[in-house]
């Protein structure tokens, strides 16, 4: 898996790590059952504070994507497979929006509205 964080970006670093993991799930590089590197290893490689990586992992756990267990490390749950499947449906939706001249903000607003129903 490939993770990038950019300290000069306005997005918080832990958010960037979580986004990166989600992107890898959608890409299919990470699957349900895949083990993420230890927070310590990731923090060292990305020159991040250990707590930043732990916060990202906790965020993913709260989303139901990650299983955090002492001794077993961070393992992706079955929901990772769902996310991957769902991602396959997105290009079609975006293509339709683009063809109709609807931009990303309008489309995300549509999706958010559907959620709040």
């Amino acid at each position: 898996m490939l993770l990038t964080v950019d300290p000069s970006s306005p997005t918080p670093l832990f958010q960037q790590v979580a986004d990166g993991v989600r992107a890898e799930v959608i890409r299919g590089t990470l699957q349900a059952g895949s083990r993420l590197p230890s927070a310590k290893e990731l923090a060292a490689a990305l020159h991040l504070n250990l707590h930043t990586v732990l916060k990202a992992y906790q965020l993913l756990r709260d989303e139901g994507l990650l299983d955090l267990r002492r001794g077993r490390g961070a393992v992706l749950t079955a929901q990772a497979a769902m996310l991957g499947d769902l991602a396959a449906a997105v290009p079609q939706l975006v293509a339709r929006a683009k063809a109709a001249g609807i931009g990303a903000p309008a489309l995300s607003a549509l999706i958010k509205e559907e959620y709040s129903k």
Partner: protein
Amino acid sequence: MTDRQSYRRRLLALGALLPLAIAAAGAALILSWLPTLPGEVAVHWTSSGADGFAPPLTLAGVLLLSAVLFGAIVVTALWNASGGRGGNGRILLAVSAGLPSFLAVAFAGILTPQSGGGDPRTIEFPVAALVAGIGCAAAVGALAWMLAPTAPPRDRMPEPVENLQLARDARVVWIGTASAPRPLLLVIGGVAAVLLLVGAALTFTIGAPGLVLLAASAILVVACLTLSWRVRIDDDGLVARPLIGIPVVRVSLGQVKEASVIDVSPVDDFGGWGLRYSSSGTGVILRTGTALRLDQTGGAFTITLDDAPRAAGLVNALIARRSTAESSR
């Protein structure tokens, strides 16, 4: 029938059926002699005479077991081989057929003078049996060598390197695993388990000869642990280490001229699996297929990775960023 199918049929015939048939014939011969043999026969000698004894059935068991275990590894290892020099595949097949030939003839030679009664302790070391065994093994091995099938060439279509862009300040890491195909790991693990059980049983009943099997089992377990590697690429370069933790392979980014994706064949390009040193450079070669190749000033480093296109793209992006940073300084 495709080339691949006919190759596999000949591989099975030479690598599995031939050694099994030889071992079975040897075992059948030993069984047919059982009534005339003493309960324990001499199987080990020192300069002062016979000092190791075992039931003759043990010899039949060792013969069959060695043929089955060695044949299983050879056939699995060569199942997906691809065309090329093929020399290593031939050697494996020759040994696979030669080993049971040697054992069958040597065991027959050991047992012949002991049949018809008499004290096994007075039996002399059967030099002639060993010489005949070696001769037989050489002849059968040479035959297998000549009949060894040539693996059909595989289309080598390396995927293109992915184009990655890196922001100037972005910190990036790529983490992945390089692992041997699961069937190979299962066969090696299974053989190790059988050797462990049989070795333990022999050590308790006969003694020292069983320790050899236990050692072989330990070697296979260690081999299994070096067939799965954890790989990390970051600003400093590449670090790869097997599950047992040693040896660690490091490639410093400053040494790398260019990264590319290639399609490797373990036996043809590197002469086998694992950490290899060959004319193609150093390699962590665990399966056939896509691999990351790093061209360095002192030779190339290759590692088989599923995600090689992206890993190569990242290395090239890191090199580009580093040279930009240096030139703007």
